[in-house]
């Protein structure tokens, strides 16, 4: 084994994708190569660091069920549900664009404004993309 392939082999081994023979070769190489040990330790630290971003996931069945129920009664209405849903999707996208613009504006204002102790800290900071300070949002809008 050569050092060039060690990181790839180590990654596959960490993911349980390496054969026992290749794993044994990797271990033998690492025992005699401090540079590769260091490189693999850096990869391990990075993987552990990535766990800092936790995401729970969410429930979507209730809203899906509503859409299914609406679609099943679509023929009752004069306007096709698909047209309404398409309009809703467009409006949602526009809302997201507006939200992004507000965030960018907020960031720009925060960058221009001298820091003041009287304002809420998270309202003025440009790097909180999902700030929930409704008061400041209303002011900007």
């Amino acid at each position, binding site marked *: 084994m050569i050092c060039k392939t060690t990181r790839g082999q180590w*990654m*596959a081994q960490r993911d349980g994708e390496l054969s026992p023979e290749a794993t044994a070769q990797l271990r033998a190489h690492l025992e005699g190569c401090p540079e590769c040990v260091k490189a693999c330790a850096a990869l391990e630290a990075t993987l552990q660091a990535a766990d800092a971003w936790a995401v729970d996931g969410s429930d979507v069945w209730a809203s899906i069920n509503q859409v*299914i129920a609406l679609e099943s009664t679509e023929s009752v209405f004069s306007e096709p549900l698909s047209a309404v849903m398409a309009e809703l999707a467009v409006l949602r996208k526009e809302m997201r664009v507006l939200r992004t613009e507000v965030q960018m504006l907020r960031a720009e204002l925060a960058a221009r404004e001298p820091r003041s102790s009287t304002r809420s800290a998270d309202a003025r900071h440009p790097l909180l993309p999902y700030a929930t300070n409704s008061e400041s949002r209303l002011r900007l809008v």
Partner: protein
Amino acid sequence: MIRAAQGDTQAFGRLVEKHQRRLTRFAERMLGGDRESAADAAQEAFLRLWRSREHYRPQGQIERLLLRIVRNICLDSARMRTPPESLNSLPETADSMEGPASDVQSRVFAETVRQAIFCLPEPQRVVFVLTHYEGLTYREVAAILQCPLGTVASRKLAAVEILRRRLHDWNE
């Protein structure tokens, strides 16, 4: 899914409840933490499956199919093309956050990781998210992405190398 394909909404509901968490998690990470868009993407994937239920043929795992649909929806999403905030200025956020110092550090670091992952090129990001966060095997990921196993392995390593460089200051 076979019962759902026959129009059984209760069976479809059970299918959704079984997979919704993984799909929304996957979408949220692909979309840089945008929870609302992630829920929309997962919902759209389930609805596409429901609307095409009459053409459903039981071959392969339904979850792989759903993950593939969500990935395609995320690719189409305008959010994918929105550049994330600069990584360079992130540490400053600690000054403006409230709470115990350790909590603030954790939140800033989680934000750093979120942005670093969102900065990954999409082919590397999808492999990293599916293998690292969702625990899928290379074979499963290869089946979802319809690419060779070796491609999955090389993209995973490339993703971790990019993340290592971006998170270097924090790892020191």
